[in-house]
């Protein structure tokens, strides 16, 4: 390589090294490769070179051109990186800043619990029935074998409204059992229905609210026995509480609309509140075989159809499942409480994802 080539190369390298920004770099580039650049000039001068030397010098010149272009480009990349580094060095975000707050919405534990009941009983072939909050005394009492003077009516602390419907006094339903009647009148058996909903009784203290929720259940078929009642409720309770061996006890009781009637207890520890063991029993729902009079009041012949019914307090099972100590906050809409006990709307109760806590 000729000396002038070497010099050009050395000088270019030095100039590139001295170029500290893209502007200076561009001046170097133009000074070497531009139209008036030194390399361009050398190329132009090639024609003047003696033909015998031209070929070799031409080849060397091309090598030099590639080298210089490479050097210049490499320096540009270097400068780019440095410039970006310099820019980023000044760009800072306080990563400890929280993102802009997004309001948090949750599903009320009553809704969540009713969803869980729906999922579980749904898996057992139940559908969901509905009634009205303002009912006549026939649906709430008479049809359920609670005639006008029955002591059970007095026990219910019923709220009454003025006026009547179908010649019957109006009241706020005291139990979701009215849906048993509605279901039997509307749908020919066989039936499997649950009815979660609002109920009302004139009672207000730490364990009673004038409005609360129940979930009624009704199964009617030709050969449903008390064994099915036990099986169905044990299946439900164990799945609902997520305790495979939850002790469940059935003991005789009385409800006007079932016979035989029974209260259902689950095993728990009275001292710790822990479910599933501990040797104590906790009453959790009422149940029984549908009373022949209730069937007959709905036009079903008890010689042909039989089945069972049950009812449980939604808040009560929610309180037990989640260890909620007091009933009243369920209805107070206190955001602090709701944030604590609410459920994610994006994780609805579903069997395939699991519904136990």
């Amino acid at each position, binding site marked *: 390589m000729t000396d002038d080539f070497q010099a050009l190369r050395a000088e270019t390298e030095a100039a590139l090294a001295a170029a500290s920004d893209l502007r200076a770099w561009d001046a170097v580039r133009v000074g070497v490769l531009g139209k008036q650049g030194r390399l361009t000039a050398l190329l132009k001068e090639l024609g003047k070179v003696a033909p015998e030397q031209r070929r070799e010098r031409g080849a060397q010149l091309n090598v030099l051109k590639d080298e210089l272009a490479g050097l210049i480009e490499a320096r540009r990349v270097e400068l780019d990186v440095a410039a970006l580094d310099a820019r980023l060095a000044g760009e800072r975000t306080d990563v400890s800043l929280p993102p802009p707050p997004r309001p948090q919405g949750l599903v009320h534990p009553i809704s969540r619990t009713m969803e869980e009941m729906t999922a579980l009983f749904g898996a057992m072939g139940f559908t969901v029935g509905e009634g009205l909050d303002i009912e006549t005394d026939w649906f709430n009492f008479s049809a359920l074998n609670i005639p006008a003077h029955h002591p059970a009516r007095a026990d219910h602390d019923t709220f009454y409204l003025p006026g009547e419907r179908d010649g019957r006094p109006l009241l706020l339903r005291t139990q979701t059992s009215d849906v048993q009647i509605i279901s039997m009148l509307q749908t020919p058996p066989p039936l499997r229905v649950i009815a979660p909903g609002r109920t009302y009784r004139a009672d207000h203290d730490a364990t009673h609210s004038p409005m609360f929720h129940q979930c009624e259940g009704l199964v009617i078929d030709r050969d449903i026995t008390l064994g099915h009642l036990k099986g169905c409720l044990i299946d439900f309770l164990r799945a609902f509480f997520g305790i495979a061996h939850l002790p469940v006890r059935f003991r005789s009781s009385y409800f006007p609309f079932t016979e035989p009637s029974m209260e259902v207890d689950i095993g728990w520890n009275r001292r710790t509140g822990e479910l599933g063991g501990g040797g104590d029993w906790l009453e959790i729902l009422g149940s029984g075989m549908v009373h022949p009079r209730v069937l007959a009041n709905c036009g079903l012949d008890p*010689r042909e159809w039989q089945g069972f019914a049950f009812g449980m307090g939604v808040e009560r099972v929610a309180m037990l499942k989640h260890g909620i100590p007091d009933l009243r906050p369920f209805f107070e809409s206190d955001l602090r409480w709701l944030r604590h006990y609410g459920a994610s709307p994006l994780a609805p109760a579903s069997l395939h994802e699991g519904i136990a806590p």
Partner: protein
Amino acid sequence: MKFSWSWLRTHLDTDAGIGAVTDRLTAIGLELERVEDPGAALAPFRIAHVVEAAQHPNADRLRACQVDTGAGVVSVVCGAPNARTGMRAVFAPPGSTIPATGAVLKVGEIRGVESAGMLLSLREMGLGEDHDGIVELPDDAPVGQGYAAWAGLDDPVVEISVTPNRGDALSVRGVARDLAAAGLGRLRPWAPAAVQGMGASAVSWAIDMPDACFWVLGRTVRGVRNGPSPDWLQRRLLSIGLRPISALVDITNFFTIDLGRPLHVFDADRVQGGMLRFRPGAGESFRALNGRDYVADPADCVIADAAGVQSLAGVIGGEATGCTETTANVFIECALFDPVHIALTGRRHSIASDARQRFERGVDPALLPDAIEAATQMVLDLCGGEPSVVVQAGSEPAWRRSAALRFDRLRSLGGTAVPPDEAVAALTGLGFIVEARATEAVRVAVPSWRNDIAAPIVLDQAPGLDPERARAAAEGCAETEPEADLIEEVLRLRGLDHVLPVSLPRIAPVPPAVLTPRQVRSALARRTLAAAGLMECVSFSFLDHAQAALFGDAPEALRLLNPIASDLDQMRGTLVATLALAAARNAARGQTEARLFEIGPAFREDGQETVAAGVLAGVTPRHPLAPSRGLGAVDAKAAATEALQALGLPIDSLSVSADAPNFYHPGRSGTVRQGPRLVLATFGELHPRVLQALDWTGPAAAFEVFLDRVPEPKRRRRAPPDLPAFQPVRRDFAFLVGADVPADAVLRAARGAERALTAAAHVFDVYEGDKVPPGQKSVGIEVVFQPRERTLTDAEIEAAGAKVVAAVAKATGGALR
């Protein structure tokens, strides 16, 4: 129902302990409420003999006693003035707890004398206020024996809850009978001997109200001495919380509890005219034994003498003819009433008496003759006197019934095969008598005290049932109900643990959808609103009618007749009302932002509907990137729109107009409709008047989405998506329009101008201020043109833009700014 353990054992001969008995009670439907053992705290205390009580050498007021505890003689220092040599006292050994103070005794030394225990006063044992000194027991009190047992204080009291069908179990004997039938012993026989009456009764009976009083027996006992009843009787009554009054009254209370057979005693000398008459009340006032005055209603059955009303029959007696310490001649009443009459009278006058409780559930209609003999005998035993013959009116009603049980029904209804002999034994144990027995079935006579078995069928069938179907159902009921009654008895006594649980058979390999489309809408709206950042609440369906009136009508028809509190008397017409109260409460608790929603019923005179509603109140949180702002109508609209969209409604084809209900700010609220009439939602800021009435500053906005009105979505195949290959062209326009022109009108006009080409139109800016003429505003919109066949030329875009401008001008009078 309360009874003491010793009382129970007067009827039940059993080796079972109290734990086994109470467990069984719960299992057979007589649920144990509690067992109280007053003797438990006294268990360590023994009867002791004070061998010597000498003056304490170092203390004037103390005595140094040598006490024989039955297990040796110990030294006890005692401060009681009555401690003396030779007395019998109650000794508390070291390690025992003094009930009154909770102190645990230790062996100690008091001023140099050892004291290894304590001699107790009644007050220290929690048995009274008497603190004059230590208990002095009679000289024959057995030294070393437990004090509680000796004093009869070790008698646990059992309380059970008796279901309304079991009037017979509101008696100690009834409870004992159930226990015996359940295999826990033997029911002791009870057959009172007849008492020979002498002479006519001073008082006789007449029944003028036979639908209320079926039968009554009475008897005078002359020459009685009334006074305090004997210890055993007082103790029985006290054990279950009844105050002893006098022997005659205590006797009636005893039989009420013992046999479930309420009685009443009149002072025969205070009954005017020698006759007591059951008749309807006639508005007379009388003073009852509880000291209160009652006015007898024509629907009440009263017992009256010549002077007037003396008793609300079967519910409460009267003061004027009641027995006192001076009663010399007593007239005993033993009557049988119609339960419904008793229940209504009791409810009408709000009297909860032991008599009412039993009569309204039905007492044993066959027991009257035996009961009056037993009562007479006890009067003679305790008060002396001479009994008259028994007088009566009315007659024993027909109560005999029978019921049949096919043994296989125990399996096919009860779910457990019970050996026939066992089933029959259970029934006979309860007093059923076998009338006929075959291989498959048994027919039994129902005992008189079980009025809940094979009772007369009372149906209240749904109106409008097909008559043939109704008749068959009624017939079926008459046939199956007595059998179900018997099945319940057999299963109850055997224990339901014998019934094996059977899971419900599947009706389909995969269950079908559980919810109806309408129910799914609620679930979807709930998840959507919660996911949009609203917190779900469940608020009461009722509120104060004055507050309800702030949110629209509060009609009388939806006002409770008997609210539990005056602020919970009106069924809500809108969920916004109860949610606004909730949001205001949260604000008062210092919550700066509340986004609440609820899905539940709203009540109108023509029915109820399911509504998803929300209240958005307060200000958004402050953040460097998002300044705080008050929540307003637009936030409420956003939430309502999300819900509507989730329910599948085409948002662009819904209309919004500024005519929302008047609890909203009139200028900042809207109603969302589909078509001209169907109102789907409302939203807006709450009216300042409402906020003021709730003593709340807001800001607050609300919305309602009427879920039940959302039309069922049509099931149709979806068209393939529109995916044009050409770039859309976006053009911005700013129109000057009248300030009252809704932005929506501008958008609609723009969208309609070149329908085939226009893919979308959005508002990006609204400006009112000094840069536009007064009374006008600038609305900036972006219109998106979507070419389909080829790229649009400038001229074509120009032409489309001109159409937009013309259409907006025509629709709104607006001009390009």
